[in-house]
């Protein structure tokens, strides 16, 4: 079986073809660089995404936040729910941890903007 995966690691967007036999990856072609192969592998086994959203700021407005590493794609709704429960108190600086180890994933949700 062949699966076509569009590599999103960079704006080139290479079309990578993964040939599978049962659950085994036989070959990966079409990628321009090594990152494409890694990406295609992880898309097949455990697709991950960096999560970006906002949390409420006490006193009004919102703070952009992001996961400091990619999270499993399938659990994103669950993470979002958790993040939406949070309200932060200013001041907050870029990189400050807003939620530590979200849902036991080992990944932190950090501030992506300064609010002073």
């Amino acid at each position: 079986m062949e699966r076509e995966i569009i590599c999103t690691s960079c704006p080139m967007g290479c079309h990578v073809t993964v040939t599978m036999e049962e659950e085994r990856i036989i070959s990966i072609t079409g990628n321009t660089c090594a990152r494409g192969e890694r990406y295609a592998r992880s898309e097949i086994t455990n697709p991950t995404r960096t999560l970006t959203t906002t949390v409420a700021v006490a006193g009004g407005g919102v703070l952009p936040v992001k996961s400091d590493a990619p999270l499993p794609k399938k659990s994103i709704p669950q993470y979002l729910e958790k993040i939406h429960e949070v309200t932060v108190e200013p001041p907050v600086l870029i990189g400050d941890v807003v939620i530590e180890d979200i849902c036991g994933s080992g990944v932190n949700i950090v501030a992506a903007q300064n609010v002073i």
Partner: protein
Amino acid sequence: MKTIDLVVIGGGPAGMGAAIAAYDAGVRDILVLERDHRLGGILEQCIHNGFGLHRFKEELTGPEYAWRFEKELRERKIAFRLDTMVLDLSEDKVITAMNAEEGIFRIQAKAVILAMGCRERPRGALNTPGTRPAGIYTAGTAQRYINIMGYMPGKKAVILGSGDIGLIMARRMTWEGAKVEMVLELMPYSGGLTRNIVQCLKDNDIPLLLSHTIVEIHGKERVSGVTIAQVDENRKPMMETARFVECDTVLLSVGLLPENELTRKAGVPMDVRTSGALVDQRRMTEIPGIFACGNVLHVHDLVDYVSEEAEIAGRGAAEYILQGSEPDPNPVTVRPGNGVRYTLPQRIDRAEDTTIFFRVTDVHPAVRIRVKAGEETVLMRKRPRVAPGEMETVRILGSKLQGYMGQTLTVELEEEAEHGT
């Protein structure tokens, strides 16, 4: 009237990048004027990641990318003024601006860098018939509501236009709990980056309907739905395909327009193809001492390119201020040929290594990019795929340019003749 060596209009990534580059090239008397209450420009509302891959080799969000530049600006103690709107620019580089503290004031600049960015095409430019109920927004406005004010514009949305901002907003609204019914694209291909089609639409099972448009918007006070239809090859709706889709929100993502009101006031000659100024390889317009970079010059899809261009303009302005510049009697003229919509710069007035940025008119799988002078091929490059939504570049070495001063170079596409037709 106060005089300042370099005034930069706009404090987005282009303006900040240009000011930093000019400083590093030796200019000290610099002032950045920004109408918003903070620096960063449109990036402040682009909270998704993916910025800076070329430049910093990591994926930053928009505000993080902007912050890197703001830090550099502050470290150099480059002066900037916020909440300051530039109202006018004259041909002899007198800037009229206004803020609450100083009222209306004027500055004589030795050089000016235009970095006012772009704005979205509003609905008026669309001529979608129907009433005008609440619930219709440009995608950028919706982005500002959600990401800066924390206000959700609706629960069930249809997005018209598959440019990057529309795609990003499809995911954003979904993640914030809204249902995005579909994204419609008039053209037979998307104007957005592939990664956004994958990560924003495919990931969230949002259908992308190519060759489709909205033919009517329904609802009295609030949008209650839209009638959509497929279009034929002349982009005319085929009414037999029309169907109703219920929604309370319509987002329009139908393109960006460089914001060149000030440029026009100064009488800077414009390029109808880019809707920005005509510039040379240093990004100097046809008025000596007035430079332009970023989205005010031509619409960029990647901010990394904006920063690259800002550096070129900043260095160019510094050279102009510190050394003056003799106009070259013998410039190279660069123009688009077959399959190419525009080229930038439009003029190269010195035989130095130059990157020509351009956009193609259509999607092509495998093409050759040919730069030619008359019928002579100057250089040829292969590309596996080109699309109008993705800016292309070719680099010409100064040693090569040497032989073509005073001539016209044409950038064109040539299909790879695989089928022998």
